[in-house]
């Protein structure tokens, strides 16, 4: 063997080649066998000898039907397969039982093929015999493990059910009712009962039926008892037998019955003793510990199985990264949606590998997508677009949560929620509202504008008094329609977060003054007062001019609407770092039960919602409050009394002084 190594590969001659082939043949890790076309074994390699204990000296010259290490059936099968092969049929690999020289049974996988000459005539059958004994044993073990896990799962399901029932019963305050149902031989459930109820699980009074039931359950499920019972039965049988041999049949019958009964009572006693011991957990630390230990391992295994099956079957994409931001797992749903498998992605950086874009298609910066961003509270939710196969993009909402075990950071788990449908719907809604804003407002503006022109004498002909009145009503109605459309649009813009704010330093006094000036005619018309005086020369606040004005118009306008005697005064004061503006009216007031709903959408405190006087969509206060909130302030009803009036107030952050800024 060693000389062949010294021969340079270049100088292969026929002999060397033959030598090499021989060595390959002999040392091939599987048992090999050559059989000629008559079915006679012509060669066997050394592995065959090493593995089965039969060498070339014994096997060469034997017919294939007489192979000594095969069983009778095996010999027939070998012959049949050989005949098939030689006849030209394809033969699938097959398994055979092998008995080696030392009489050990082994399992072999037989693969064979026919080597033919140039004319296609079969020359020799080349047979490889693989030892699959260990493989089979492993397979068997996997199967039995699976079966164990299945059983465990079933057991845990039963426990879950009982726990669930118990929980529900406790919540309903009637766990006594459920107690008989919980009867079990499972200490785990009783332990749980103890934790939940705070008292040991006491079994219902013993009667013959429950004892037999429990006995059977224990015989069926408890291996320790099975052994004990076996021993006891053995003793009884031998005792009875010996009594029979010594004293005859009657005595044997009596003693046998007695000892059986005795055994039964001993068992019943033991079972109850065990129950008792389990119930007195405090007194039996070792027992409790043992129980706990077995529970813990079972529970852990169960948790793992449960966790895994959740991950694999949930209809959401899940990505798990390790502490370095490298992907360790993606679930099958993710694989389906994104067309990349766990194996392909494992070990790759999440932020680099999975690109997330904003709505406009710009790639979000890596730091926003990385794990460090995901573990800061601010970025636990991320919205964006992600690539999927076929050059498509889907809208996603990514929820990320750090994995911590005892304060140790172990990476991030992300749930990628496909929101494409919602996204498209929202887009349609946006589109609809922007179309509505243009299409609804334009005709309304034209109606209002043209009527105003006619009313103000654009036409040559003079209008009669009743014409003027009619047109006046049309004008008012169209004004109201415009403001309603504006309300709806404002709400939809608020919903979509599309209100842009331009917060800067403005003089709050000026804003209120301009509103008062605008609404004064309305108040005058109703014969009520409208008072305002700025407490200082100017009060500078941080606000958006347009939004603030709209909110103030709304509040003051509302007060005018609901006040018919007395009037409205607007007061301002500085409290802490905020400007507080109060709108105090002497109007009809708001009933207590309506006060809490005041700032909800479509809510009007008064029943006369659709009366001409009140008018409106019921969105005004909601919009105003949201506007003020957008400017970092708040709005509320300070007090209100029916028939005496209401005080609304809102706050806005003030600009302190030039130096402190």
């Amino acid at each position: 063997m060693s000389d062949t190594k010294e021969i340079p590969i270049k100088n292969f001659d026929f002999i060397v080649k033959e030598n090499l082939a021989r060595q390959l043949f002999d040392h091939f890790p599987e048992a090999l066998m050559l059989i000629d076309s008559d079915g006679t074994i012509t060669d066997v390699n050394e592995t065959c000898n090493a593995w089965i204990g039969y060498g070339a000296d014994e096997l060469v010259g034997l017919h294939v039907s007489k192979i000594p290490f095969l069983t009778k059936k095996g010999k027939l099968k070998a012959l049949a397969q050989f005949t098939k092969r030689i006849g030209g049929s394809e033969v699938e690999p097959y398994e055979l039982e092998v008995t080696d020289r030392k009489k050990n049974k082994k399992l072999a996988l037989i693969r064979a093929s026919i080597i033919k000459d140039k004319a296609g005539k079969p020359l020799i059958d080349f047979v490889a015999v693989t030892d699959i004994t260990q493989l089979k044993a492993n397979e068997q073990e996997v199967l039995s493990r699976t079966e164990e896990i299945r059983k465990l799962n079933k057991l845990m399901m039963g426990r879950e059910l009982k726990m669930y029932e118990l929980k529900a019963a406790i919540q309903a305050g009637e766990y006594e009712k459920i107690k008989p149902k919980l009867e079990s031989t499972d200490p785990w459930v009783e332990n749980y009962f103890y934790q939940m109820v705070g008292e040991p699980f006491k079994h219902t009074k013993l009667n013959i039926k429950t004892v037999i039931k429990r006995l059977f359950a224990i015989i069926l499920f408890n291996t320790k008892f099975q052994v004990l019972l076996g021993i006891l039965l053995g003793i009884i049988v031998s005792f009875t037998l010996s009594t029979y041999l010594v004293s005859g049949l009657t005595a044997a019958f009596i003693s046998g019955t007695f000892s059986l009964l005795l055994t039964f009572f001993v068992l019943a006693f033991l079972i109850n003793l065990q129950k008792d011991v389990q119930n007195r957990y405090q007194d039996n630390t070792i027992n409790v510990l043992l129980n706990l230990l077995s529970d813990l391992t079972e529970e852990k295994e169960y948790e793992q199985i449960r966790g895994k099956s959740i991950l694999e079957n949930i209809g959401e994409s899940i990505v798990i990264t390790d502490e370095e931001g490298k992907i360790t797992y993606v679930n099958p749903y993710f694989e389906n949606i994104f067309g990349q498998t766990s194996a392909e992605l494992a070990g790759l950086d999440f932020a680099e590998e999975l690109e997330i874009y904003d709505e406009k298609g710009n790639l979000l910066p890596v730091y926003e997508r990385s794990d460090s961003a995901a573990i800061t509270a601010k970025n636990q939710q991320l919205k964006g677009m992600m690539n999927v196969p076929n050059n498509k993009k889907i809208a996603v909402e990514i929820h990320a949560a750090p994995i911590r075990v005892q304060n140790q950071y172990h990476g991030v788990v992300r749930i990628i929620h496909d929101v494409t449908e919602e996204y498209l719907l929202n887009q349609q809604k946006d589109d609809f509202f922007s179309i509505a804003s243009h299409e609804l407002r334009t005709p309304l503006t034209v109606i209002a504008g043209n009527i105003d022109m006619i009313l103000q004498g654009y036409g040559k002909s003079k209008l009669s008094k009743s014409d003027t009145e009619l047109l006046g009503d049309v004008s008012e109605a169209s004004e109201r329609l415009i403001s309603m459309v504006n309300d709806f649009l404002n709400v939809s813009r608020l919903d979509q977060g599309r209100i842009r704010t331009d917060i800067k330093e403005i003089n709050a006094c000026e804003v209120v003054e301009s509103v008062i000036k605008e609404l004064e005619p309305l108040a005058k018309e109703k014969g009520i007062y409208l008072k305002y005086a700025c407490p200082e020369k100017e009060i500078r606040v941080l606000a958006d001019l347009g939004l603030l004005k709209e909110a103030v118009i709304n509040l003051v306008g509302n007060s005018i609407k609901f006040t018919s005697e007395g009037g409205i005064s607007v007061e301002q004061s500085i409290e802490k770092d905020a400007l507080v503006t109060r709108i105090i009216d002497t109007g009809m007031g708001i009933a207590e039960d309506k006060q809490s709903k005041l700032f909800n959408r479509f809510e009007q405190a008064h029943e006369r919602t659709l009366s001409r006087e009140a008018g409106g969509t019921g969105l005004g206060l909601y919009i105003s409050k949201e506007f003020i909130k957008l400017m970092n302030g708040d709005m509320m009803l300070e007090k209100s009394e029916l028939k005496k009036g209401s005080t609304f107030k809102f706050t806005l952050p003030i600009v302190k002084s030039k130096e402190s800024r």
Partner: protein
Amino acid sequence: MPKVLIVEDEVLVSRMYQKMVESEGFEVQIASNGVDGIQMAKDWKPDLIMMDVMMPEMNGVQALQTLKEDPEISHIPVIMLTNMSGEHDAELALSKGASQFWVKKDLDPKTLKENLLEVLDTNTKK
């Protein structure tokens, strides 16, 4: 008679403005989009332009920018008209050289003449 060019894509609206402005003694022409508006400003040489912000193809702010970049017509004062009380659009338009910014629904026929003359006046003073 001062000449006012109204650039507005919505016929109903432009016709309404035309009547309003004409009744105050101005001469009025209408363009229905930004591109036409710029062409008409060059050909007709109005004294003042009223321009809608929201228009298809070339929007008002783009048209305004083009106008102000053309030395031939950059001196003409422009009043921007909008549907919404958008302070942002107003600021943007003013920064691009608009003289004033009017919200359509606040447009009052009673004060229209006064306001138009004010814009013309300020511009000639410059």
